């Protein structure tokens, strides 16, 4: 089931605020995006950009005393997640939307055997008996590439290596064949060689099952080969969104350009590595104009004064910048 536009997931004007000691932190401040069936969306941003909070909000996993989903709608298969009852929400989680997290060591219960953690999901959502759940779990583990699954599954998480643990998490997440998989920095805590393996695994599984994927990361190298569409977030807002190839080839936003330049290019001999100067802003005290103005090489007077418009460069490519068209033109020229 999709909604009218063929979207599996449709987020509109999502705002998530946190009450902190010295003011309100606007972690996510009005973002809109869609994910189509079978598509992979990448969300890229530095720490503090709001990418993780946005995705936790998708399953309403935000702690409500400090945090609050202030406004917006999250349409999944035609129903607004934010309006679901707790029971309906629990039915959704793990079964139709699944999430894997950054650090597999801390994300798995260290006191519980892996087999039990896996079996829990299918027994809860698919009504499996113990035997069925166990067989299914073995199947999933083998599927994600864990050797000797039947023997090893009764071990505890700390007895697996980092890469293995992440595979276990993926197996757990995909147990009930969810329609949407949210992967929050799945490879950040892993070795580089393992990173590639895990990403490959996600790609394969996605191809098999047709699951949509939201891949969150701060690493542009990761999204390059994996995603169909990209969103760049900064200071709680979407700064640019476009199909992946388009974004890499013709960025329309100085921030995106800066990010792209930061990825070291082994083919070019440069003396210094590029880094976007400065620090992300304090989200409790945002300046009136563009949040990136202080660090932007193109910043002009208008940038500190007025909030930039969300410019439509092509029907599928938008950028939040006063000079979006100019930046886009420059990128097109050099590509």
């Amino acid at each position: 089931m999709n909604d009218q536009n063929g979207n599996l997931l449709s987020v509109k004007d999502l705002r998530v605020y946190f009450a902190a000691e010295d003011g309100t932190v606007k972690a996510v401040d009005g973002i809109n995006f869609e994910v189509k069936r079978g598509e992979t969306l990448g969300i890229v941003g530095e720490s503090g950009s709001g990418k993780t909070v946005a995705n936790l909000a998708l399953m309403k996993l935000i702690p409500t005393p400090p945090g609050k989903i202030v406004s917006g709608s999250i349409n999944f298969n035609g129903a607004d997640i934010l309006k679901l009852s707790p029971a309906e929400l629990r039915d959704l989680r793990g079964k139709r939307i699944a999430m894997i997290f950054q650090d597999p060591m801390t994300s798995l219960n260290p006191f519980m055997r892996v087999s039990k953690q896996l079996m829990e999901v299918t027994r809860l959502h698919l009504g499996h008996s113990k035997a069925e759940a166990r067989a299914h779990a073995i199947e999933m583990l083998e599927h994600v590439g864990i050797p000797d699954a039947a023997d090893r599954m009764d071990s505890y998480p700390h007895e697996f290596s980092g890469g293995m643990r992440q595979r276990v998490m993926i197996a757990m997440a995909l147990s009930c064949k969810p329609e949407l998989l949210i992967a929050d920095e799945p490879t950040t805590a892993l070795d580089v060689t393992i990173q590639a393996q895990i990403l490959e695994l996600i790609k394969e599984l996605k191809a098999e099952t047709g699951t949509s994927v939201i891949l969150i990361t701060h690493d542009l190298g990761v999204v390059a080969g994996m995603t169909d569409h990209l969103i760049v977030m900064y200071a709680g807002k979407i700064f640019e969104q476009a199909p992946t190839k388009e974004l890499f080839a013709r960025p329309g936003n100085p921030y995106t350009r800066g990010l792209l330049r930061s990825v070291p290019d082994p083919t070019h001999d440069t003396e210094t590595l590029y880094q976007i100067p400065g620090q992300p802003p304090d989200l409790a005290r945002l300046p009136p104009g563009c949040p990136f103005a202080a660090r932007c090489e193109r910043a002009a007077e208008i940038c500190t004064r007025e909030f930039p418009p969300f410019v439509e460069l092509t029907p599928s490519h938008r950028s939040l910048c006063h000079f979006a068209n100019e930046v886009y033109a420059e990128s097109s020229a050099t590509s």
Partner: protein
Amino acid sequence: MDPNEPQNRINEPELHVGPEYAVAERDVSELVTGEIVTGSSLWRDAWRRLLRNKLAVFGMIVVVLIALSAIAGPAIIKQTTGFTYDSIPKDTTLLKSIPPFRGPNGEFSWKHPMGTDVAGRDILARVLSGGQISLMVALIATLVSLVIGVSYGAIAGYLGGRVDDLMMRMVDVLYSLPYVIIVIVLLALLPAKTPTAQLAQLFFALGAVSWLTMARIVRGQILSLKNQEFVLAARATGVSTPKIIFRHLVPNALGPVIVYATLTIPSVMLSEAFLSFLGLGVRPPRVSWGSLAAEGAQNLAVYPWQLIFPGVTMALMLFSLNFVGDGLRDALDPQMRRD
């Protein structure tokens, strides 16, 4: 037993978690970026945070009130009414226990707001004098435990290696002995002769029980500070080892030390009280809250006020001290490095 000892697996939580939702602290702390201020404002921040904790403030006020009453009270009472903790009335009709706010024949009277004990002594005066002793013992014993614990822990932590191993093994051994039992044996069998000697003995006995955890805490802190740059700098400029330990490392380890010391005071006070209750701590003619409670417990059925007043006062003091200690721990927590 030290539930106050920072245990590796526990931290006082800073985030609130509602029933339906969960998030890791990391996700939220990602968001609030800003500058980390170090240096003198560390203490000012902690102080400000402490003041925001209403329970801790309430605790501090009560502690100060009771302490002041205990310090100045006995003298004031002596001046105004002539009662001391020891004064037995000359009038033989008064040699009995009178309830609070009553006179010898049951009429209303302001003379003895807390009543008198069986020897006719004013309980208010006794409670305040007892407070003096209890407070003094608690403070000095804590000081003793502080001095021993900090030195021991700092030396062990700084020297490291086998010396550290050995020293901590000894602490482990001592920790698993029924320490208090031996202290009881000590106090029962070797009573000091003069009242001052008695008190001194008590200070050391009590301090000797609580220094162990302090040593562990300090050692832990020193271990984590030891390899930081300022130590290397001091060593490079030729500062001698004892100086490094005491002038450089110890001041930086102060946070947990202060918290633990503040929590030791009520614990020591309680120990002194029950030792006195058993007849081993403060002995007549001196009084402490514990010995007063012992007397009161004996006559509970007939003269309950003899127990209630010292008991409640002591409980109030401990209550408040614990709040202050907890508040301090919460206030210093973010800066406090837990193992």
